[in-house]
């Protein structure tokens, strides 16, 4: 137990003379960054980040694993994930129909919190590390069982943008590194 201590401080005072020095100091710093800029901008449509596998991107369904337990729909905080009922013939009793349920997703609402992926007892849902998918109309954003199973493709990657990744650096903060063909995971 070492509780935090309160430390009283005062803002440093600056006189008239030293303010000239401070002006110069700021100007010199500006010039330093003018000549040696530190930039890590992502040139987005021409470059794209190869995201971590842990990234909570678009969600895809593996239909075979789904047991229709509704957990994902219950836990969805925005009502994006909802179940759809299907009637399929019951192999044991051909007279009665069997009802199966599968999740569907509305990407207009999804906030990618990943609760559905985490709560799924059979790992039937998983995240794809893709964050930029374009839909041509709003109706397409509601994905029913068929389209929900397809892994979305990032349009930038599909159009041949340069894959990059960021690595941490103690001097420059982040450094953008180009990923070569072989390196791709």
């Amino acid at each position, binding site marked *: 137990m070492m509780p935090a201590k309160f430390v009283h401080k005062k803002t440093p005072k600056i006189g008239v003379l030293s303010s000239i020095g401070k002006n110069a100091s*700021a*100007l010199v710093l500006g010039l330093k960054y*003018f000549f040696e*800029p*530190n*930039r*890590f901008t992502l040139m987005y449509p021409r470059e794209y980040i190869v995201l971590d596998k842990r990234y909570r991107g678009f969600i895809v369904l593996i239909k075979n694993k789904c047991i229709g337990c509704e957990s994902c729909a219950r836990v969805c905080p925005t009502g994006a994930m909802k179940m759809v009922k299907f009637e399929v013939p019951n192999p044991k009793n051909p007279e009665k129909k069997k009802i199966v349920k599968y999740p569907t997703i509305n990407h207009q609402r999804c906030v990618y919190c990943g609760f559905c992926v985490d709560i799924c007892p059979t790992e039937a849902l998983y995240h794809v590390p893709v964050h930029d998918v374009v839909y041509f109309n709003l109706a397409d954003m509601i994905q029913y069982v068929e389209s929900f199973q397809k892994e979305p493709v990032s349009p930038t990657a599909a159009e041949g943008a340069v894959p990059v990744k960021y690595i941490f650096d103690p001097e420059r903060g982040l450094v953008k590194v180009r990923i070569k063909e072989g390196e791709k995971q």
Partner: protein
Amino acid sequence: MAYISIWTLTRDVISTVFWGIVKLIFWPPIYQFVIIPGLVAALVVVISIIWFERKAAARVQMRYGPLEVSPKLAGYLQLFADLIRYSFQEIIIPRTADIIPFITSPFFALLLSLLPLAVIPVSPVKWTWPLTLSAMRYSVLIAAALTTLSPIFIVAMGWASNNRFSTIGSMRESFLITAYELSAIIGIFSVVATVHSFDFTNIVNFQGGGKWLGLINPIALLAAFIATLISTSAFPFEISDAENEIVAGPFTEYSGLMYGVNMGTAYIKRWAMSVLIVLAFLGGWRPYIPPPNAGYIAGYLVPSLIVSAKAVVVMALMSFLRAVYGRYRIDQALHISWKYVFALAIAGFGLGILEGYLL
């Protein structure tokens, strides 16, 4: 015979027309006001300087600045794209605005901020002087007087817009006019005291051999520099159109091309002031000395380009300050300009008199 005479006639006509156009272009009032350092040069410089300002600030700020419009030219054409966009935007005139001053003020402000350029010499060759010889003897006085005209129309814009932010903005502008004009003019006039002449030609000739007045009298140069910053609302004195406080100050109600004109006016004014500073402090067209009977190129174009190049450097320096400073509050700016800049200007004037006595 007839064939030849027609040929010679055509040749004569063409050459007359060509030389007529050349003469017209290099006719001092036209050349100074429209070509260099006037409208055309001002536009090119302003567009380049805005581009430089954005790029320089971007380099300091971990960004790239304009790039998408022409990646190979480092985004230089972005400004032209902006210009085109401005010119196609709808110009909205508020119903409550006072229409005639609202429409005319931006253009008067633009024209008047260019006017000082039409009365200054950009070459020592006599035929290039835009004024008569007797008027030329007072060119510093005339140019300085003309620089004071355009702010009135900025105040008028704010008043005509009938918008609260505009009113506050033009109120700030009118405070600042009184604060910087005196310092700027006294700063430039300290040169007059040193050289004992109101003639820019004499002042520039005085500065031959690296004897720049800016080096001899740096206090006056600093005063004139800061006063220029204040007058053209450059950082850290971007006060009359402070975006986060009063939206766009006097220009709040302007849209489309009129807004573009307003934004350009500040830069054009900065350009005119930079040219004045170059002539007064930074050696004008020196070290180049044209031959006494020089023609259009050697006697007019080259010296004017030298002056322009120096002025561009001054402007670039002013623009770079955007990356380093925030903005002062209006009362602080007034405090600074009356207490420090004015004192600097007076000190520079005193130094100028002293040097005029000694040198």
